[in-house]
């Protein structure tokens, strides 16, 4: 959701603008295409558990990197989340 659909946003008075599901998008069954998944495990060398910061959700970053990767032939090297259509167009 945060990667592709909409971010949490506030106006200048601090009013939440994405306060209901009319504005804050929940990903639906048709939001993503089908894909194969896999894990690439690299243990952290700096602690005994081999863990990188616990509880961090990596998926939005992965999705954003996929988009940037796909757009790299057009010269896109980075992008802020969420990758909504207007932001993608601007990046290109």
């Amino acid at each position, binding site marked *: 959701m945060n990667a592709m*659909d*909409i*971010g949490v*946003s506030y106006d200048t008075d601090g009013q939440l*603008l*994405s306060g209901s*599901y*009319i*504005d*804050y*998008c*929940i990903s639906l069954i048709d*939001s993503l295409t089908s894909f194969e998944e896999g894990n690439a495990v690299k243990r952290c060398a700096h602690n005994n558990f081999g863990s990188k910061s616990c509880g961090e959700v990596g998926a939005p970053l992965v999705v954003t990197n996929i988009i940037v990767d796909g757009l790299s032939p057009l010269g896109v090297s980075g992008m802020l989340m969420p990758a*909504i*259509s*207007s932001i993608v*167009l601007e990046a290109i």
Partner: protein
Amino acid sequence: MYNFIYHKAESLADASMKLKGADDGSVLAGGMTLLPTLKLRLAQPSDLIDLGPIGDLRGVTVSSGAIIIGAMTTHASVAKSADVRSAIPALANLAEGIGDAQVRNRGTIGGSVANNDPAADYPAACLALGATIQTNRREIAADNFFNGLFDTSLEEGELIKAVSFPVPSKASYEKFPNPASRFALVGVFVSQTANAVRVAVTGAGQEGVFRVAEMEIALSSDFSPDAVAGVKVASDSLNSDIHAGADYRAHLITVLAKRAVAACK
């Protein structure tokens, strides 16, 4: 939700009378906007007059050169109607793309048109197809019906009976949905008849649905996607919100108009 008195209307005349008798009454069609508004306590009508029991407000009829859709016909019924599908496929497609399955099975064409939400789909169809809004008092051309944000020419106690759509030679509706609500971020409806081309845009205008004269003129002499490719709508009067800025909406109008012309059938 605040308290209100609930009434079942037996006919449009009955609904109009009950509305007149209420302190601050609201008419309930499908309720897909009104009910969430009540739940959020954004409105406090004294009375709710439900048009649901009025059976003759539902259904599609075909008359000479027009499709007439009863005010209480749901979006799902319009999408499924073989008559609409064969006469104006663009209209059936539009109905099929409104909200989600739940909304389509409750929401009605009359409710959508009367509410004139600036991002609703039906106002674009009404304006681009040159529809006539039939009420319990008169007939109003779509060109004279939509008066800006959530405002229409309906007078107090005036209720929509049906919407009559002249069958065009070709038409198409292209919508870029808001990913969250599925309302139109921008929607462009293009129609061609024997003597006119009409282009209507919803979702983008600060004052709701509007026609794009420059595109209509360009398409009248050359009905092709290229004819509108160079026409840009000025962004000053367009909406800007967390989903898209005015410039992006202006960009989408041209892109969707091209697609609509290409898909016209």
